[in-house]
């Protein structure tokens, strides 16, 4: 008995230790970013363009660029991802092929982002002649987000009790009617939650946009979807490693990092809020 108690205590201590380590890491990161970056945060920083060789000014174009590219990503990933998930979960019969498709989708989410970037160059920039642009970058990020969206959407669909579908069918609804009225309304919040999480990840990616459209210095708002753009993660990368005056621009780098982290945090928060509302609906 004493041994069991001891083992239990030991296990608990170990797990607590893991948690503490992680917390420490998180706190360190946030502290670092916040302390070194918050000084730079001002309305000017957020609203102005970079100037003077990027050593001064703000990051407004990067914010806009990230925003636009995420929009394109969403435009591709949401309808395509949800549609694919609906087909796989509601219509597809269980067979070797569908199982293969599902496995492939899962595997795609593990493909390194740089590979997506290179693929995007070949497909969008060159083959489809979209050139380096917001469109190319957005579509590339969209492809990268698709496996995420599909998986999250499938999970959300699976969570809708089968009794809703059966009940609708038994009343004389067609399959699509039963999905539209009895499945989607209850799955969409979950689908969105997962999708937004995927989008927030995409917003912070550097590799896929590296060759497909991100530019280092474009101190104005992109003219169209076909033009290149600045983006926060890429800007941060340049500021932190490629700039000729790294020491001098370090505060800007930290400021950018802080903005990026806050942005992603806000996106995830919205996903959480949606999920909270979803739980309220389900309860009644």
């Amino acid at each position, binding site marked *: 008995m004493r041994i069991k108690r001891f083992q239990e205590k030991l296990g608990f201590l170990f797990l607590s230790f893991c948690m503490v380590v992680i917390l420490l890491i998180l706190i360190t990161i946030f502290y670092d970013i916040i302390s070194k970056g918050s000084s730079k945060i001002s309305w000017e920083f957020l609203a102005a363009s970079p100037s003077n060789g990027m050593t001064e000014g703000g990051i407004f174009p990067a914010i806009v660029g990230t925003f636009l590219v995420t929009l394109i990503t969403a435009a591709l990933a949401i309808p395509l991802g949800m549609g694919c998930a609906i087909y796989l979960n509601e219509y597809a019969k269980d067979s070797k092929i569908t199982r293969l498709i599902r496995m492939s989708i899962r595997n795609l989410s593990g493909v390194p982002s740089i590979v997506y970037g290179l693929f995007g160059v070949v497909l969008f920039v060159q083959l489809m002649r979209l050139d380096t642009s917001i469109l190319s970058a957005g579509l590339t990020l969209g492809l990268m987000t698709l496996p995420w969206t599909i998986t999250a959407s499938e999970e959300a669909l699976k969570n809708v009790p089968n*009794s*809703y579908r*059966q*009940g609708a069918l*038994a*009343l*004389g609804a067609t399959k699509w009617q039963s999905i539209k009225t009895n499945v989607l309304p*209850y799955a969409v919040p979950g689908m969105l939650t997962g999708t937004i999480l995927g989008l927030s990840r995409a917003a912070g990616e550097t590799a896929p946009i590296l060759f497909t459209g991100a530019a280092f210095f474009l101190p104005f708002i992109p003219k169209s979807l076909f033009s290149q753009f600045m983006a926060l993660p890429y800007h941060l990368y340049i500021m932190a490693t490629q700039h000729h005056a790294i020491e001098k621009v370090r505060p800007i780098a930290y400021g950018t990092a802080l903005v990026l982290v806050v942005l992603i945090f806000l996106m995830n928060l919205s996903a959480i809020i949606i999920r909270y509302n979803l739980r309220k609906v389900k*309860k*009644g």
Partner: protein
Amino acid sequence: MEDIKIKVEDFSFYYGSVQALKNINIDVRRNRVLGIIGPSGCGKSTFLRSINRMNEVIAGSRIEGRVIVDGKNIYDSNVDAVEIRKNIGMVFQKSNPFPKSIFDNVAYGLKINGIRDKDYISDKVERSLKDAALWKEIKDRLHKSAFELSGGQQQRLCIARALAVEPEILLMDEPASALDPTATHKIEELIEALKQKYTIVIVTHNMQQAARISDFCAFFMLGELIEYDLTNIVFTKPSKKITEDYITGRFG
């Protein structure tokens, strides 16, 4: 005979290579309750779901034989499954109200059939809830969520929902198995009243319930129809020994 509402002829059902129903022949009389009993896995639910073609959603299933409702084989190639389900209502074992308001639950069947007239819908909802003996209890909270109802009330709501589309046949799969005795009693009384207007087929594993509420009784085992007769005969002098063994609790 015009007396027969559903005529099942040489009906077999296959899940892939497994034959779940073997050559079933039953005549279901109009405005009567047919009770289906049998041990678990004997095919009773499968048989029930074959009557409104709900089994078709299962991949790899196929049927042989015919199910003739009002003189028409519902498995004919030119018959749309969706259409016949409008005439055959189904109540499931575990009550499955939709996560909508009470009103919207009952109105669902009407709305998906394209009915838009608000007054008509309101009337029908009230009518159906009255027929299901639920109106008095909930008439002041029609727009509250269906989940706020008790188990027995939810089941009656599902019955009202099925009645709203005016089916002629009601299929019930162990409708009271998840309910307490009082709620069960209410459902049984309801079935007794409903059979004036509807033809009812009910699957139940509770033999006393089958004895109480059914007019005819069919005993299934391992996918076969073993005995089919008036309920009072099945329960006092069944003609097959195996039926008697089952209903006296000697197995199963």
